[in-house]
């Protein structure tokens, strides 16, 4: 498989603040990549650098095998981008926006646009200014997919959409995934959506890509352990893969990444009365992981081959 998105030590400062730090991001053809991180983690800046809207201080980025500094128009045509908040020219009608956008492309699937507009009951005569947030999202999705792009980059596409419109949007996204070979990178804060559509996730923490692995692998690797002690619980524990810890009376709670035999024996050597291992859903795993102490956060990027063996052991 080829890398559709490939960045090498991509770095950007705003003032003295290093917002993206030596980022090596690789997204393979056909992957649906959930690009996650808290506000200010560097997601949008990364996306803007991918699209040439922000110039990196150092490092490089390539899309579809071409450097983003010198992307040929033919290549640019194969890439769709939906910006945060679905900006559109408000003085245009839906129909005018379609004709305007269409003029930049040699390939344009007009039938697909009509289908999407029909599906969402949008008329070409409607003014963009009068559309709801949900309708704007649908128009910008229609405009983005009409040139049948090979790569879609979506910056928080479901931000501000109500539950029903969000589901509609995800359904459209699934339709796009069904067309073979499409690669999608999208950022989102709604982890339930990410779990539905992404087969791989990356988590940015303070400008650094801390997690880069299959979605299920991440959520299955982050565990919360509750240790119960006969007396007061220890205050500070050192352990491989430790993300966070709290002591509450006789209980010690640990959040661990990549829970394995080595960690188990490290935890047992504390001689607790009981150890409870709690599975987390993707949202809980994300919260526990990203609110840990940034500097000591363990990096976490294991490969797919590893993933299947971990997942299958849970079989009843």
């Amino acid at each position, binding site marked *: 498989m080829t890398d559709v998105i490939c960045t090498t030590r991509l770095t950007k400062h705003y003032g003295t603040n290093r917002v993206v730090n030596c980022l090596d991001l690789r997204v393979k053809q056909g992957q649906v990549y959930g690009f996650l991180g808290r506000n200010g983690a560097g997601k949008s800046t990364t996306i803007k650098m991918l699209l040439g809207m922000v110039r990196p201080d150092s490092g490089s980025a390539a899309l579809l095998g071409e450097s983003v500094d010198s992307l040929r128009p033919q290549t640019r045509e194969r890439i769709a981008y939906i910006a945060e908040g679905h900006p559109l020219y408000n003085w245009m009608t839906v129909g005018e926006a379609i004709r305007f956008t269409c003029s930049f492309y040699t390939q344009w699937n007009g039938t697909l646009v009509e289908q999407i507009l029909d599906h969402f009951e949008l008329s070409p005569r409607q003014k963009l200014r009068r559309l709801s947030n949900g309708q704007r999202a649908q128009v910008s999705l229609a405009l983005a997919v009409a040139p049948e792009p090979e790569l879609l980059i979506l910056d928080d596409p479901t931000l501000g959409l109500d539950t029903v419109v969000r589901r509609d949007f995800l*359904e459209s996204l*699934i339709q796009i*995934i069904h067309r073979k070979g499409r690669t999608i990178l999208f950022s989102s804060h709604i982890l339930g959506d990410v779990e*539905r559509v992404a*087969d791989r996730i990356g988590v940015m923490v303070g400008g650094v890509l801390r997690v880069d692995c299959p979605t299920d692998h991440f959520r299955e690797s982050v565990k919360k352990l509750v240790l119960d002690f006969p007396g007061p619980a220890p205050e500070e524990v050192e352990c491989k893969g430790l993300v966070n810890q709290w002591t509450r009376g006789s209980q010690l709670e640990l959040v661990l990444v990549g829970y394995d035999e080595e960690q188990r024996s490290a935890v047992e050597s504390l001689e607790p009365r009981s150890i409870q291992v709690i599975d987390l859903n993707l949202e809980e795993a994300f919260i526990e992981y990203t609110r840990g102490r940034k500097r000591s956060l363990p990096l976490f990027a294991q490969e797919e081959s590893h993933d299947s063996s971990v*997942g299958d052991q849970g079989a*009843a």
Partner: protein
Amino acid sequence: MQFQCDTTSRTPIYRQLIDQARTAVARGQLRPGDRLPSVRQLSRELVVNPNTVARAYTELEREGVLVTQQGRGAFVAEPQQDLTKKARRKQLLEKLDELFVEAVHLGFSADELLAMVQDRIKQFAFTATGGNGP
């Protein structure tokens, strides 16, 4: 049967689908030869990545719950046992003991438990012969 997916659950989506299919077969809602929705169909219906559905189907095929026929789709398999009766008995007894532990701690008498078993048994599709296997 109707598949569902719950993203707030601590069980991964592919695992949820596996559990639902196994339960539906055990309850007789899915019978051998029944056709399951295609990967694309189910992916669209549940709004989940097709790879997630495919992963569940692959696992179910490995467990012998379903068979896929190239170009025709996925079907519920005829029950077939790879393990010896002795091994399967051992597995079931372990689960049974877990149930007894719970029953004792919840304060049920042996007769009450037996009556409940008799009642619930009707809801499941047991094999008449006791399952053929090696």
